[in-house]
C-alpha cells in the first residue's frame, strides 16, 4: 500500500516538473511552429545556473527565480539572434536548435564539470507532512502545489487577459492576428522567454530530486515531446494532463516492468497518434 502511494507521489512530482518543462515547449511549438529541441538544454542549464546561484549565497527560491530570469534573457537572445530569422524553415530550426543543444551541453560540461550535483531541498521542506496517517515528503508536495499554481496562473494569463487573448489568436491563425494589428513577432519573443524561464525554473526545482548531470537535457527532451504529442500542441490543458500521464507511466513502468519501461512510456503516445493525431486536447490542424 505504502509502495503504491509512494509511487503515486513520485509520479505527481515528476508530472509537475514535466509540466514546467512542457508548458513552454508546447506554447512555443503551438505559437511559433518551432520544434525547440533546445528545451531540454534550457532545463539543464537552468538547473546548473541555480546551483551556481546557490553556491553564491542565494536562498533556494531566490536562486530558482534568478535562474528563471537568466534563462528568460538567454532564451530571448537566442530567439532574437537566431530563431527569428528562420521563421517557417523547419529543417533550419531543427539544425539550429540541435546545434545549440550540443553547445549548451558542452558549455555546461566545461563550467560545471561532469560530476553530478545533488542539491539539498530548501530548508523547511526537508521533512515529511502527515496527511491521513501517511507521511508525505514535504518537498515533493511543494513541487506539485507549485506546478498547479503555475498552471493556474498560466491559465489565467491565457484565458483572462488581453495578452492571453492575443497569444491565443496567434496560435490559432498568425497571419489573421497580424492583420487585426497584433504584433505577433513581439508575442513570439515573449512566449519564448517565458518558456525558457519556466524550463529553467523547473530545472532548479527538479535538482533536489533528479540531481543535475550531463545528459539531463537528453533525458528530459523526449519526455517533453511525449507530453506535447499526448496532450496536443499549443494546448495548456493538454500539457498539464499529458505531464501527469507521463509522470505516472514513467514511475509505474519503472517499478513494475523495468525491462519494458520505455515501451510502456511510448505506447500510449503511439495509440494517441494513431487514433487522434492532433493529441488529446489539440485542435485539428
Amino acid at each position, binding site marked *: 500500500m505504502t509502495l503504491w502511494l509512494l509511487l503515486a507521489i513520485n509520479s505527481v512530482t515528476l508530472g509537475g516538473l514535466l509540466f514546467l518543462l512542457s508548458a513552454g515547449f508546447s506554447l512555443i511549438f503551438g505559437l511559433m511552429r518551432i520544434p525547440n529541441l533546445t528545451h531540454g538544454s534550457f532545463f539543464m542549464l537552468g538547473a546548473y545556473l541555480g546551483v551556481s546561484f546557490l553556491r553564491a549565497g542565494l536562498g533556494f527560491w531566490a536562486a530558482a527565480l534568478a535562474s528563471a530570469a537568466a534563462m528568460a534573457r538567454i532564451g530571448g537572445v537566442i530567439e532574437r539572434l537566431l530563431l527569428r530569422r528562420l521563421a517557417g524553415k*523547419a529543417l533550419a530550426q531543427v539544425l539550429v536548435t*540541435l*546545434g545549440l543543444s550540443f553547445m549548451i551541453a558542452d558549455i555546461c560540461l566545461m563550467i560545471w564539470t561532469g560530476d553530478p550535483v545533488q542539491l539539498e531541498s530548501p530548508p523547511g521542506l526537508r521533512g515529511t507532512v502527515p496527511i491521513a496517517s501517511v507521511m508525505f515528503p514535504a518537498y515533493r508536495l511543494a513541487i506539485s502545489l507549485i506546478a498547479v499554481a503555475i498552471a493556474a496562473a498560466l491559465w489565467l494569463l491565457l484565458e483572462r487577459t488581453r495578452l492571453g487573448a492575443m497569444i491565443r489568436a496567434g496560435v490559432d491563425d498568425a497571419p489573421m492576428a497580424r492583420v487585426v494589428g497584433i504584433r505577433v513577432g513581439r508575442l513570439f519573443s515573449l512566449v519564448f522567454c517565458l518558456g525558457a524561464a519556466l524550463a529553467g525554473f523547473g530545472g532548479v526545482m527538479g535538482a533536489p530530486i533528479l540531481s543535475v548531470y550531463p545528459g539531463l537535457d537528453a533525458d528530459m527532451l523526449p519526455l517533453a515531446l511525449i507530453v506535447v504529442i499526448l496532450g496536443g500542441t499549443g494546448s495548456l490543458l493538454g500539457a498539464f494532463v499529458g505531464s501527469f500521464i507521463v509522470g505516472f507511466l514513467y514511475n509505474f513502468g519503472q517499478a513494475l516492468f523495468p525491462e519494458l519501461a520505455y515501451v510502456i512510456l511510448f505506447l500510449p503516445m503511439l495509440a494517441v497518434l494513431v487514433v487522434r493525431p492532433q493529441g488529446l486536447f489539440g485542435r485539428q490542424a
Partner: protein
Amino acid sequence: MTRRWAFALAALVLASLPLWLANSYYVNIASQILIWAMLALSVNVLAGYAGLVSLGHAGLFGVACYAVALSAAAGMGHLAAAFVALAAILAATALFALLSLRASGISFLMITLALGQILWGIAYRWISLTQGDNGINLAARPAPFGISLESPPAFYLATLAVFCLVVAALEVFTASPFGASLAGTRDQPQRMTALGYHVWLIRFLAFLFSGLIAGVAGLFFVYYDKFVSPHALSLATSAEALLMVISGGTGTLIGPIAGAALVVIMKYVASAYIERWNLVLGAIFVAIVLFMPEGLVPGTLRLWRAVRGARVGGADLGPAGRGAP
C-alpha cells in the same frame, strides 16, 4: 555523362586512399566516414526527396546492428546473419512507416523520434535479450570470398565497394520515374493524389528503401566495431545522422557525404586537438544555418558561381539545385 565520369574518378581516388594515407588510423577514419555517410544518405532519401524528416533512423540502424550481432552469436554464418539483419530492418521499417506515415512535417519527426526511443529502450532495458549497456560482441569480421577484412585497408576497400553500390543505387533511384514521383509527393502531395498517384504507397516504398540503406550501414557499423551497444540507437545518433544531411545539403547526393565527413572528422580528428569539439561542432551547425541555409555543398556551389560571375548557365547541379525544400 560528365557526372558519371566524375563519380568514377572520385571512386578511384577514394580507392587509392590507403596507398597515400600511411597511418592506418586515418584509413579507419575514412571507413567510419563511409559508414556514417551511408546512414546519412538513408536519412536523406526521406528528408531530401520525400520531405519527411526522420529523427528515428538510429533505431532502424540499431535493429540491423543487433540482428546481425545476435544471429552471429546464435551460431549463424555471416551471410545468413546479414540476410536476417536486412529482413529484420525491412520488417521494422515497415512498422515504422505504417505508424509514422499517418502524419507529415513536424509530427512525422516526433513520431519517428518516439519510435526510435522505443527501440533504444528495448536495447537498453531488455537485458535478457540485448545484455543492456554491456552490448554484444561480434566474434570476427566476415571474410567474403576468403578475403580477410581484419586489416584496416581491406575493410576500407570492402566498405567503399558497398558504398559505391549504395551511391549508384541512389543515383538510379533519383533519376527514375519513381524518384520523380517521390519528389512530387514532397512538393505537391495533393496534386499528386489528383493525378492518380498513390502518395502513401510511394512514401511507404521510399521508407523501405531508406531502411534498407540504413540496414547496410548498420551491418558495416557492427563489422567495424565488432560490437554494438544501445548507444547506436540513441537519439544522439539519429540527431547526428540528420545533422549530417541538413548541414551537407538536403536532397543532394554529395551533401550527406560531406556532412558525414565533417561530423566524423570533428569527432575523431579535431577532438584530438580541440577539447571542446562538441561546442565547435554545434557552432558550425548554427553558422551553416545562418550563412548557408541550403547546406554546405549547395552553398559552396552557389558561392563558387557567384565568384565566377555571370557564367552560370552550364553548371550541372543534378538534384542539388532542386533539392532544398
